[in-house]
């Protein structure tokens, strides 16, 4: 019989080591191919793993495309605060703002890494499945290294966030609470909101008004309606991305009995909900950039995002099957839209603040 595979039961002393990525005596790395009723590993030699260059693997592990969801609201709020400071004369501590951006980026990266690590250790991330960065499941990185990196990123987040917390304790506490909830829910599914159909609402609030409002509070000691309204734009983008992520997995989750929102709503309703999310983004943008704070430079983002929405909406409405090839990459398409929004908005803010003389 081939020694390529090994099955061990729960409680086997070797289990934890293999899950963490310890190689066999002959140097073969264990890949998890089944986790129920027992744990089955496939042992593959490192030379057969077809690993990309190590730096690319680590970049992939951080899931940089998803970072837009947390850094976008901060940069969006920062751009507006700078423009506002030109008019009101209030001071923006750019050092503190930079630390917040670094802290949020590091926290989000930590969440991504913790998420991959915990999914793997629970046996949810099998070699033939998709979702997450899949750097552990494919044997490109050892789980224990990913775990260490997650802690390192988390410590960076704490180090960068500490001055923000101490500069304004109440708002800092709010951001710290955000960090705690983000880690517990999105990294280790502590509350299981995803399976209760509430994750989308949580994501809208956390990556939207909570982040923009919390950031403004930390920077200025107050929260304005504008900041919260701006949060609605980013929250809606996060809502779209999370929905598309769950929608991509509708068949797998449905068959596993997981009650995510797309599973509850059904295939056609999920398509409609995608269009609703797109409408929500446009409506929020129009509300903020046309009514609350009209600025020609920012309206460009409405145009850019509208252009990006067309292909996505058309793609979603043409879907005929939960296993259709076009289902793949929907989440990524949502993130692309978020990046488009961020880039367009940042360019708009740079133009506005440049013409206002901020950079002089």
């Amino acid at each position: 019989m081939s020694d390529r595979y090994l099955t061990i039961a729960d409680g086997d002393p070797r289990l934890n080591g293999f899950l963490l990525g310890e190689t066999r005596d002959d140097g073969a790395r264990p890949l998890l191919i089944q986790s129920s009723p027992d744990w089955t590993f496939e042992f593959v030699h490192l030379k057969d793993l077809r690993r990309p260059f190590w730096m690319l693997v680590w970049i992939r592990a951080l899931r940089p495309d998803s970072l837009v969801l947390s850094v976008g609201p901060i940069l969006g709020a920062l751009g507006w605060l700078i423009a506002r400071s030109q008019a009101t004369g209030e001071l923006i501590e750019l050092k503190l703002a930079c630390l917040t951006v670094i802290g949020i980026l590091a926290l989000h990266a930590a969440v991504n890494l913790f998420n991959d690590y915990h999914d793997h250790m629970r046996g949810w991330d099998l070699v033939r499945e998709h979702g997450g960065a899949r750097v552990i499941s494919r044997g490109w990185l050892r789980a224990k290294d990913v775990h260490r990196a997650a802690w390192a990123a988390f410590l960076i987040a704490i180090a960068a966030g500490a001055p923000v917390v101490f500069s304004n304790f109440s708002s800092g506490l709010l951001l710290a609470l955000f960090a705690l909830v983000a880690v517990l829910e999105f990294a280790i599914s502590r509350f299981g909101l995803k399976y209760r159909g509430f994750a989308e609402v949580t994501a809208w609030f956390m990556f939207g008004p909570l982040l923009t409002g919390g950031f403004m509070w930390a920077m200025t000691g107050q929260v304005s309606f504008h900041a919260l309204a701006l949060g609605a734009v980013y929250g809606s983008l996060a809502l779209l991305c999370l929905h598309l992520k769950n929608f991509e997995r509708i068949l797998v989750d449905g068959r596993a009995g997981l009650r995510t929102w797309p599973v509850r709503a059904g295939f056609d309703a999920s398509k409609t909900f995608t269009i609703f999310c797109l409408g929500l983004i446009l409506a929020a943008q129009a509300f903020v950039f046309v009514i609350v704070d009209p600025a020609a430079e920012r309206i460009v983002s409405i145009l850019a995002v509208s252009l990006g929405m067309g292909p996505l909406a058309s793609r979603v409405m043409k879907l005929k099957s939960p296993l259709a090839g076009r289902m793949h990459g929907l989440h990524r398409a949502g993130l692309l839209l978020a990046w488009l929004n961020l880039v367009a908005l940042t360019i708009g803010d740079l133009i506005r603040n440049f013409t206002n003389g901020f950079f002089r």
Partner: protein
Amino acid sequence: MSSIKIYNSDDFPTYLPKLNALYDDLFKDGKGFRSKLVNRLGAEIHLDTRVIDLLAQTVEFIHNASLLHDDLIDHSVLRRGKPAAWSKYTPEYAVLAGDYLLARVMVNLSGHGNVRLIQRTAKAISDLLEGEWIQDSLVKDFKITLRDLDRVHDLKTGSLFKWCLSAPFIAKERYDEKLLGRLEDCGTTLGLLFQRSDDLLDFDIRNDEGKAVLGDLKSGYLNSFSVWVLRELPESVFQKAIRSQSLGEFKSVVGEAHFGARATAFDDENQKLIDLYFHRLGEVRDGLQANELGVIEVLKQLPKPLYWRKRD
């Protein structure tokens, strides 16, 4: 393998002669692979012969019901070298005959009285139908991945293999969940192997049965081997290849050398699945009682005919 007759003259109403004629045509020349498998497994675990017959009939009824529906959905005019039921007897009769077989399954099993068995069988049928439904929705979808096809095949093809391996134990009231889970894992692998081998026939590889070549691709369906051959090819080559009208044209578009290399790599990939299957047999063995170990010998022989299409 000789053809099998899995029912008696009193199984179907005599006052519906067309239905009987349709079934005579349908079951004639069937290889009865699944029922023979159930027969052998049932014997190895010392199941009552009447129960074995019931299980064998059940799996053939479900399988043939799926063929009746499948041919109509795919518009296949031939089945086992003869006119498909829907083309000979009308689509309406083909649908009704398929439904009738599934209903008979439930009548027969409920007469036996093992609720777990009825439940497991109903799940196999619903999985099979779900697989059929999803597969039909994938026609003209040229972005499908091998992993997604595996999911469809696990439902459509694997469901009955899983049933064949677990049903004898359930019928014997051996409700060892771990053992049943392991048997079903073996069934999943067998289903994939069988389907992938069947997909190779479409490219005239080990096609001793003389099945129609390139039928899947011409009807707009990418099967597992076509996905395997076409992935990572330039888009222009891909677009040309999926419009091929003959195997020769397909090979010349993708390149004879590339086709051959991918066929070898496909076999290598599936050999890994066979290795996994044998590994899983080891797990099954651990769950068997001493007087059931003959099951392993039966199961060991399956990859050869199922994937390599070799018969002893």
